[in-house]
């Protein structure tokens, strides 16, 4: 056989799913359970957090020669579970003009669900109807009521802890018991109350009680980002792909970088997917009756834009021209402080679950503010495990406080008194990050770079993205709030409050890793690529189930909504198939 021949598998699958993250994992779970023969394409490698060769959980910092510092391969530290990063060898992306966009990718089973903070927030009723509220962006073609039953099912299937608070835009859910707050979180509950900042138990997909016999329960090591040996936190690989494989209805092809969705020139229907085997660089083809994109908002848009044919000259499912446009990430800004009341704390194990035990959902009314959309606040603090970066910058802090004997001391220093400062300040730092909703814009987009290809020969994405005053003024408000929160807690803010010249400390777009909107859904076929079932207007056997279909972001993290909508789209596929429409 010639090496240049395109390899074609003889099977025609019922469904091909591209990508194994939250959206692809849920589609795989639902469709294999319904009896469909599924082929799952994953660009990266296999991953199972209970296989000793992958385990980083409960390792000590000194087991890493860099003490947990980040590397190009693990930008969130040497123990983080996600393989890939911002800068993957041979897989570049470019930017247009002075755009600064950063794109985080995970090349592994489960994708980026191996990395995230397990923050599992439902969108609220207002999040689907923003245009009706503030005249900006667009309404979704669906409302909260249509998604709610699927949120309920996701809650039961995957598990999320939290508390019912009867808030208008942060819906109550089917919650497992929330862990008790840590000391600094108890202090925040009290001080934020004085400020009128709603602060409630966080909502994380971590099992505080067993929900089935496939997964264990949390043993409170705070290391969800390292992935859990007991499967007590949600990742698509452990909780969705694994059970999907167990049905024997699914073949998973690893190291498969999708290049193009193939279509029939006559019918215009999708017939399969062409992919590059990343180990051999061979081009291969897999055939299927239905194709589901779940490669991530930007990667799925790239795939459609690269799937050009005589019938689809602007890329597949793109007669509207919207594919790649309306790209938006959550906004982000953060600040830290030090709380003298916590100096010389009593030591005990306060790891708790991964991430924070309390957070602040958006608590204000934008009609009374100079920016249109809200944000939530995530908090950190406590007596964490020391690692690379521990005590870094103490020269900016220790001069502010007298020493143990009440004597004034100079910033910086060395020797016994410095050593003692580290001990005194341990567990006295707190910090917070705002995560807000951006207003989607047509002129924030990704497109195919006219010149560059990746090492697989596939044209790469080029990003164009600018923040507007909507986001800048929101970040300004975040920083004003952060200082209030730190001061009310009795703390001292560290560093400086960023000004207009620094876009009020806004993270660069992409850095919050909540990209959405690039293949949006809608009823108007000239302004959207997908219908309300996430089915392409132009190609009825093509669906998108990652965050690309999102019309807007909400001031929430997107994973729980990806899961609910992927489940909903998958059920629709099964029904349509039974009805003979697909």
């Amino acid at each position, binding site marked *: 056989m010639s090496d240049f021949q395109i390899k074609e598998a003889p099977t025609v699958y019922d469904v091909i799913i591209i990508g194994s993250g939250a959206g692809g994992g849920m589609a795989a779970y639902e469709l294999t359970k319904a009896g469909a023969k599924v082929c799952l394409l994953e660009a990266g490698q296999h991953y199972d957090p209970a296989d000793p060769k992958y385990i980083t959980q409960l*390792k000590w910092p000194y087991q890493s020669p860099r003490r947990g510092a980040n590397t190009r*391969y693990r930008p969130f530290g040497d123990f983080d579970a996600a393989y890939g990063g911002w800068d993957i060898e041979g897989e570049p992306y470019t930017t247009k003009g002075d755009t600064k966009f950063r794109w985080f990718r995970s090349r592994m089973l489960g994708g980026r669900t191996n990395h995230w903070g397990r923050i599992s927030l439902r969108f609220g009723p207002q999040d689907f109807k923003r245009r009706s509220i503030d005249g900006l962006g667009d309404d979704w073609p669906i409302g909260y009521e249509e998604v709610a039953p699927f949120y309920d099912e996701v809650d039961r299937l995957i598990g999320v802890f939290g508390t019912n608070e009867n808030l208008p835009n942060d819906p109550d859910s089917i919650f497992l018991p929330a862990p008790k707050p840590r000391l600094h979180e108890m202090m925040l509950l009290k001080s934020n109350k004085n400020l009128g900042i709603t602060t409630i138990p966080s909502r994380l997909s971590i099992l505080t009680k067993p929900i089935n016999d496939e997964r264990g329960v949390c043993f409170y090591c*705070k290391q969800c980002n390292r992935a859990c040996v*007991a499967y007590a936190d949600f990742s698509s690989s452990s909780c969705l792909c694994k059970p999907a494989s167990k049905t024997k209805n699914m073949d998973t092809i690893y190291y498969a970088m999708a290049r193009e969705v193939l279509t029939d020139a006559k019918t215009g229907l999708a017939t399969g997917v062409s992919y590059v085997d990343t180990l051999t660089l061979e081009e291969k083809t897999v055939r299927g009756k239905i194709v589901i994109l779940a490669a991530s908002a930007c990667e799925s848009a790239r795939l459609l834009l690269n799937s050009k044919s005589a019938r689809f000259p602007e890329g597949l499912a793109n007669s509207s021209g919207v594919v790649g446009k309306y790209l938006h990430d959550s906004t982000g800004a953060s600040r830290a402080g030090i709380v003298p009341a916590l100096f010389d704390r009593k030591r005990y194990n306060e790891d708790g679950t991964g991430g924070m035990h309390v957070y602040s959902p958006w608590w204000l009314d934008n009609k009374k503010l100079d920016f249109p959309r809200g944000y939530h606040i995530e908090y950190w603090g406590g007596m964490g495990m020391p690692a690379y970066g521990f005590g870094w910058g103490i020269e900016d802090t220790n001069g502010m406080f007298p020493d143990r004997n009440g004597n004034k001391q100079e*910033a910086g220093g*060395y020797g016994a008194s410095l050593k003692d400062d580290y001990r005194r300040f341990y567990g006295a730092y707190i910090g917070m990050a705002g995560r807000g909703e951006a207003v989607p814009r047509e002129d924030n987009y990704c497109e195919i770079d006219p010149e560059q290809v990746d090492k697989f020969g596939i044209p790469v994405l080029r990003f164009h993205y600018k923040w507007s005053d909507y986001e800048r003024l929101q970040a300004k408000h975040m920083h004003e709030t952060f200082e209030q929160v730190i001061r009310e807690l009795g703390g001292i803010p560290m560093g400086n409050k960023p000004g207009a010249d620094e876009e009020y400390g806004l993270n660069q777009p992409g850095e919050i890793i909540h990209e959405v909107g690039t293949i949006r859904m809608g009823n108007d076929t000239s302004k959207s690529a997908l219908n309300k079932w996430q089915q392409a207007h132009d190609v009825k056997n093509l669906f998108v189930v990652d965050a690309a279909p999102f019309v807007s972001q909400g001031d929430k993290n997107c994973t729980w909504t990806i899961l609910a909508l992927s489940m909903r789209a998958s059920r629709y596929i099964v029904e349509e198939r039974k009805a003979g429409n697909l």
Partner: protein
Amino acid sequence: MKRRNVLKSIGLSSLGLVGLNPQVKASEILDPTLHPGLAPDDKKKDPEFEQFGRTDYEKARDAKLFAEQFFNKHEMKTISMLVDIIIPRDSRSGSATDAGVPDFIEFMAKDKPELQTPLRGGLTWMDNMMKRSHEQDFISCTAAQRIALVEEIAYPKRKKSGMSQGIAFFSLMRNLTASGFWSSKIGIEDIGYMGNTPNQWDGPPEDVVRQYGL
């Protein structure tokens, strides 16, 4: 209680009588006594560094870094003296060199090449300063002479003229020393971090809640 037993008991207590399979499996996987190769104390040719879920390309890169040497002997000696001035032995714990900080800094200089010039240049800057005033390099000077120079560069707010580069270098050394020391076994024990082990979380201890009036 051993990790394994704690984990099993968590599974048992939350389910009544039936242990969760994933919990039992997790307890066996995470129990270092069942996997001697995974024990952090095993010092044979740094196996602990390879045994924590490294990908092949990470293993290859780490092996390459371990095989290289960035700092020469003189620089390593200077680093060792300096880190022990920053974090000395005291009644509670050992010094930075006791905790292996010089080797850690050597590794970081290879791992983050952007550290190389500031570190090598800073060490040379110190030697130059000492040679100018005492005609000897840093390590050959007396302890009092060394401390006299450190006094000049350890306090960033003093703004001593002609010393700003030395101050920046010393801050970097202070920060790297703290990272290396407090993340070592000695440092973790000293600072009193008590986590990284299976347990049950039930809020802060009662006396702590009382202490803070919460």
